[in-house]
C-alpha cells in the first residue's frame, strides 16, 4: 500500500505568502509536493465557505496565509481574515475536526524559508492525523434522484392546478418580486416537463411558508412541489443563491458526512441539569453553530438553549442532550439536497432510538416540522412524542404547575411559518404570553395563518425582496406599539436582527425593536 500523501490547500495572499513561496522557489528551498496554492489578492478574500469547501472536497489540511499584522496591502485585510478564521475554527472544532488541519499563518514575502518550513511541518503533522475522512465521502448531489418531474407533478397534486392564481395573489414573494409567480412555475413545469424549469434561480425564492397552499382550491401542495423540483435542480448543480456564501449549507454537508464526534455542548455549564438516563430529549438543533456564525449580529443564539434548559429544569425535567445529534436536515431538504437530508435523518433517528427517547422537545420549529413530517415521509420513524417548548409550557400552565413573576412589557408575536402554517401551532405561544402577568400581547395586523414570513428560508435567495419583507414586518411590529417582538424560531430572530443591522450612513426607516425568543422571555419570568 502506498503511503498516505496529505493534500494541503494554501490560500496565499498575492503580496506576501504567494511571494514567499516564490522566494522559496527562487532560493530552491525544497518542500514536500503535497501543497496546492490558490492565489488570492488578500487573505481577507478567503471566505469561510472557501475553507469549508476545501474540507468538503477532501483537503487533508488548509492553510490561510497572509501578511503580518500591520503589513497588509489593503491596510487590514489580514485582520479581517483572522476574525473570520476564528469563527471558522470554532465551527471546525465543533464539528470535531482536528484543529491541526485548518491553520492561519502570517508569512511575509521575504520569508521563503518560513513558508517551506510551515509546509513541511504541516505535512508531517497531517501525516500523523491521517487522511481526511471527507476524501472518500460521497459528494452531495452526485446521485441522481429517483424522482422525475412527472412524479413530482403527480405527488404534489400539481396536475390539479386550476390556474386560478390564488397562490400568486397571496404569495409574499410575489408581493415584493412581481416577476415571481407560483402559478406560472407550476404551469411552466407542467408544460415543458423539461430541465429548463429547474434552471431558474427563482426556484429558490419560495419561502415554503404555506400561505398559498392554505388557500389553494385544488389542494396543490406548492411548497412540497417546489421542494421536489429543487431536488431535480440540485442534481443538475443549481442551488439558488446561498446567503452567507453557502457556509451554513457547507457545514451541514460536512456534518452529514462526518465520522467525527462533534463538540457542540461546550456551552452547557453545571448550572443546567441534564441526564443521560432521561427519556425526554431536548433537540438543540443548529443553535450552537449559529452562535459563532452570527456573532456579528449579537444574536446570542445560545441564550435560547440556556433559557429552554432553565424552563425544563424548573419544571423538574432533566432532559437528555445528545452530544452528537446532527442538524435535522431541514435546510438540506428544502434546498433539494435530499442525500444530505437522508444521511442526517438516518443518523438522528438511529441515535434517538438507541437512546430510548419517548419525547422530544424543540426550541426550533424547523426541527419540529422536519421530525414530525419529513422524517416519516422519508421512512425514518422515530416513534416518540414531539413537542415545541411553547406547547410544553402551555401544558404546564393549563395544569397550573407553572407560575410567573410580573414582567411589565408590551409584546407582539411573530408566528414562524414552520410552527404556524406548517404545524398549526398558533395558540400555545399566545397562551404562554398571556399567562405571564404584566405582558400585554398586541397582535400585528397579519397574524396566525395570515402571518408574514421573516423573509428567508433555508439561507437561500436572501435578496432585496426578502429584506423588504422583513422591513415591512418589523414596521408592522413597531406599529403595534409593542416593545418586544417575540418569536419562537431562532432563524426568525437572526433574520430580523440582520435587517436591523444597519451599518451604512444611509439609514432606512426606523425598524429597531427588541427581538426575543419566547423561551428567553419565559425563562426571565420564572422565579428561580
Amino acid at each position, binding site marked *: 500500500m502506498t503511503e498516505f500523501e496529505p493534500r494541503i490547500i494554501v490560500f496565499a495572499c498575492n503580496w506576501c505568502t504567494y511571494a514567499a513561496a516564490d522566494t522559496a*522557489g527562487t532560493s530552491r528551498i525544497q518542500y514536500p509536493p503535497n501543497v496546492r496554492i490558490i492565489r488570492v489578492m488578500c487573505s*481577507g478574500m478567503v471566505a469561510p465557505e472557501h475553507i469549508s469547501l476545501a474540507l468538503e472536497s477532501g483537503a487533508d489540511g488548509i492553510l490561510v496565509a497572509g501578511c503580518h499584522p500591520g503589513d497588509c496591502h489593503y491596510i487590514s485585510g489580514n485582520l479581517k481574515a483572522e476574525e473570520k478564521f476564528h469563527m471558522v475554527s470554532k465551527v471546525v472544532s465543533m464539528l470535531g475536526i482536528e484543529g491541526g488541519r485548518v491553520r492561519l499563518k502570517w508569512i511575509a514575502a521575504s520569508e521563503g524559508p518560513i513558508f517551506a518550513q510551515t509546509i513541511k511541518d504541516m505535512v508531517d503533522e497531517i501525516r500523523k492525523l491521517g487522511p481526511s475522512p471527507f476524501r472518500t465521502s460521497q459528494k452531495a448531489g452526485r446521485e441522481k434522484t429517483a424522482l422525475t418531474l412527472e412524479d413530482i407533478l403527480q405527488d404534489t397534486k400539481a396536475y390539479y392546478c386550476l390556474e386560478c392564481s390564488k397562490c400568486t395573489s397571496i404569495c409574499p414573494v410575489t408581493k415584493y418580486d412581481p416577476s415571481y409567480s407560483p402559478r406560472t412555475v407550476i404551469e411552466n413545469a407542467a408544460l415543458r416537463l423539461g430541465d429548463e424549469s429547474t434552471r431558474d434561480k427563482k426556484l429558490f425564492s419560495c419561502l415554503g411558508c404555506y400561505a398559498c397552499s392554505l388557500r389553494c382550491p385544488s389542494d396543490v401542495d406548492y411548497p412540497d412541489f417546489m421542494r421536489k423540483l429543487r431536488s431535480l435542480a440540485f442534481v443538475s448543480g443549481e442551488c439558488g443563491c446561498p446567503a452567507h456564501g453557502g457556509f451554513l449549507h457547507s457545514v451541514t454537508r460536512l456534518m452529514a458526512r462526518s465520522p467525527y464526534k462533534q463538540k457542540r455542548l461546550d456551552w452547557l455549564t453545571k448550572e443546567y441539569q441534564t441526564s443521560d438516563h432521561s427519556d425526554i430529549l431536548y433537540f438543540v438543533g443548529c443553535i450552537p453553530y449559529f452562535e459563532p456564525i452570527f456573532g456579528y449580529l449579537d444574536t446570542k443564539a445560545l441564550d435560547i438553549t440556556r433559557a429552554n434548559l432553565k424552563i425544563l429544569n424548573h419544571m423538574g425535567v432533566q432532559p437528555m442532550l445528545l452530544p452528537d445529534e446532527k442538524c435535522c436536515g431541514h435546510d438540506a431538504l428544502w434546498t433539494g439536497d435530499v442525500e444530505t437530508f437522508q444521511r442526517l435523518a438516518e443518523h438522528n433517528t438511529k441515535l434517538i432510538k438507541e437512546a430510548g427517547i419517548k419525547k422530544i422537545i424543540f426550541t426550533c420549529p424547523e426541527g419540529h416540522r422536519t421530525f414530525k413530517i419529513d422524517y416519516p415521509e422519508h421512512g425514518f420513524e422515530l416513534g416518540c412524542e414531539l413537542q415545541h417548548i411553547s406547547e410544553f409550557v402551555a401544558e404546564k400552565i393549563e395544569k397550573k404547575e407553572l407560575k410567573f413573576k410580573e414582567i411589565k412589557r408590551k409584546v407582539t408575536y411573530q408566528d414562524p411559518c414552520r410552527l404556524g402554517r406548517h404545524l398549526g401551532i398558533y395558540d400555545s405561544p399566545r397562551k404562554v404570553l398571556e399567562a405571564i402577568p404584566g405582558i400585554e400581547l398586541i397582535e400585528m395586523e397579519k397574524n396566525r395563518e395570515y402571518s408574514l414570513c421573516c423573509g428567508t428560508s433555508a439561507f437561500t435567495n436572501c435578496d432585496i425582496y426578502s429584506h423588504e419583507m422583513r422591513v415591512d414586518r418589523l414596521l408592522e411590529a413597531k406599529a403595534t406599539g409593542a416593545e418586544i417582538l417575540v418569536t419562537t424560531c431562532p432563524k426568525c430572530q437572526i433574520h430580523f436582527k440582520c435587517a436591523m443591522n444597519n451599518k*451604512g*450612513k444611509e439609514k432606512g426607516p426606523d425598524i429597531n425593536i427588541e427581538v426575543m425568543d419566547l423561551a428567553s422571555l419565559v425563562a426571565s419570568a420564572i422565579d428561580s
Partner: protein
Amino acid sequence: MLMENEKRIGVYICHCGLNIAGTVDVEELTKYAATLPNVVISRDYRYICSDPGQELIKNDIKELKLNRVVVASCSPRMHEHTFRKACRAAGLNPYLYEHVNIREHCSWVHADKKQATEKAKDLVRAAVQRVYYHQPLEIKEIPVIPEALVVGGGIAGIEAALKIANSGRKVYLVEKEPSIGGHMIQLDTTFPTLDCSECIMTPKMSEVGHHPNIELLAYSEVEEVSGSVGNFKVKVRKKARFVDEDKCIGCGVCEQKCPWKVPSEFEAGLGQRKAIYIPFAQAIPNIATVDKDHCVYIQSGGKKCGACIKICEAGAVDFNQIDQIVELQVGAIILATGYDIFDPSQILQYGYGKYDNVITALEFERMTCAAGPTSGKIQLKDGRIPQSVAIIHCVGSRDRNYREYCSKICCMYALKHGHHLRDRIDADVYQMYIDMRCTGDAYEEFYKRVSEEGVVFIKGKVAEVTDRANTEEEKGRLVVVAEDTLLAKLVRIPVDMVILCPAMIPRADATEIARKFSITQKASGFFLERHAKLEPQVSAMDGVFLAGCCQFPKDIPDSVSHGRAAAAAALELIDRGSVAAEAAIACVDETLCHGCGICEEICEFQAPKVIVKDGKRVSTVNEALCKGCGACAVACPSGAMSIKHFTRDEISTMIKALATVEK
C-alpha cells in the same frame, strides 16, 4: 461555426529551458492538458515568454479562435503581465487569461519528477477550469494628476525632486526636520574620493530652495493619504515654527540671544544649539525654528523670557502660530524617508554611554568637520588628542541578536575615518572588522591606500570594550578585547578612543509610514520593493515609489541613482497622463443587496457606499477607489457583493479541482 458561449481554451506549457523541463515532464503535461474539457490546443515551448513564444499564442488566438488562454510557466508576479499583454495584442480581453506557476511553486521546489509532474497537472487542470469562468473586464483609464510628492529631503529625496522639477513637473517636497539635507549634510567628507560633503550637497539644497517647480514643505509631516495611483489626496501637517516664514531673513540674531541651550541634533549631540535655532549654517529654508519643548517662553505660558521676540527686527517670531493642515493632490508619491542609526548603548559590552571616549561614527564625523563643534579638531572628551583609536565595524549589523543584514556603507566610512586619523593626528588606528566589503568603484583601491597608510586591520569581532586594566600600559585607557581570527590569538588593544560603526536601521516610524502609504515592510523593517532586482524603486502600492535608504542601506551614489530611478518611475506615470484602473474589483448584484452597509463599514478605502435608488437602499462601488481586496464580498451576508475575476464560481472551482485527490 463558433457557438455563442463556446469556451475555446489554449494551454501553453513553458520549459523555461531546463528550469521547468528538468523536473516536470512537460510533454506529458502538455498531452494531459489537451484532454481537459474545452481545451482546443495544448502546446509546449522552450521559452514561452520570448517573442516567438508570444507570437505562437497570438496566432493561435486568431487562427484557432481561442477565447481563453492558460500559460503554465514561472510566477505570475513575473510574467502574468506579459501574457495578458500578448492576449490583448491579439484582440483578446486580458482578463480571459489565467497564469499557472509551475516553476517557483513546482519545479524549483520539488526534486521528484513524477510528483512534480502530478502537481503541475493539478495546477493546470485547476487553471483550465477557472479560466472557463473568466469574464472580459473593462479596463478604465483614470487621469493622472501631473504633480508629485516627495517625502524626505535627504540626498535621495532631493535628487528625485530635482529630476521631476527639471522635467517641468510640479513637486511637493515634505521634510519633517526644519531643514532639508538629511544625513548627508552631517557628513564631513565622502568616501572614497574624500570630497567635502557639504560642498557637493549645498548647491543641490539651494537649487531645491529656489526651484520654481518645487514647493518645499519643511518642518512638515504627512498625516493622511487617501485615493489611489494617479489621484492621491495627501494631508500634510505643517508644524508651527513660531517664526513667520515670510518675515524671517535667517540672520540668526534670535539664536545668539536665546539663553536656552539644547544638545544639537545636527551635531549628533556633540555640540549645542539654542531653543530657537537654525539647525546649521546652510539650512534650506534658512529660517529659525522654535523648539517648543525647550523654549521657556512657551513652557512658562508666555510668562518668562521672550528674548527672541524683542530682538527680532523683522518681527518674525510669532508664538500664536499653530500647526496648519495643507491638502495636496498628486499623481505619484516618492518615499525617501531615510534611515535611523542603531543605538549602540544596547550592546552593553561596547560601553557606549558608559565610557566618554566611546563614540559613534556620526559623532566622529561631526568632530572631523571644520564647521563642527570642535572646529575639526579630533579630541578626547578631556581635550587631549588621542594617540590610538579602534574602529569597531558591524555594531548591530550582521548580528542575529540585532540586525542580520550588512549595513553596506560602514566598511568604507571606517576606512575614511582611519585615513583622517592617520592623516590629521597620526594616531594608531585599529580596524576591528569581520569582513572588509569594498565593492564600489575605486573602493578596493581606497582600502589598499588606507592599509598602506599604516592602519592596522584585525579580523575579529570585538567581544568587549573595558576600562579594567590588566597591565600598566592599559591603565587609564580603553581596552578592546577580541580574537584576531587570522592569528587565532586573543588580543587586548589599549586605545584612547573607540569609534563604533552602528547599523543603519529603518526609521523608528517606518511602520507608521508604511501604514499611511499602504506599503509593506520587509523582515528587516525597510520598505518592500515590488521586485528586488527589476523594480527596486517601486513599492507594492501602485503610484508609490521608493528612493534611498528607506528601502535598504545605500551609499551616496546608490542613493542618488535610486532617487533618480524613482523620479523616472514617477515621471513615467505622470507623463502617461492616465492609468489603467484595477479591473478586478467589487461589484454589487442589486437584486440581492439589502443596503445594510456592512460593506461600507468594512472597506478601508471608502469604495462601497449605500445610496437610495428607486426608493430602495442599495450599495454602489466607487470603481476609482476599490482595490479589489475582497473584504466586502466576504462580509456581505446576502452574497450581493462579489469581486470580479475572483468570483464564487472561480474560486470554488479551483478549490474543488485542487483539494480533490483523484482515487
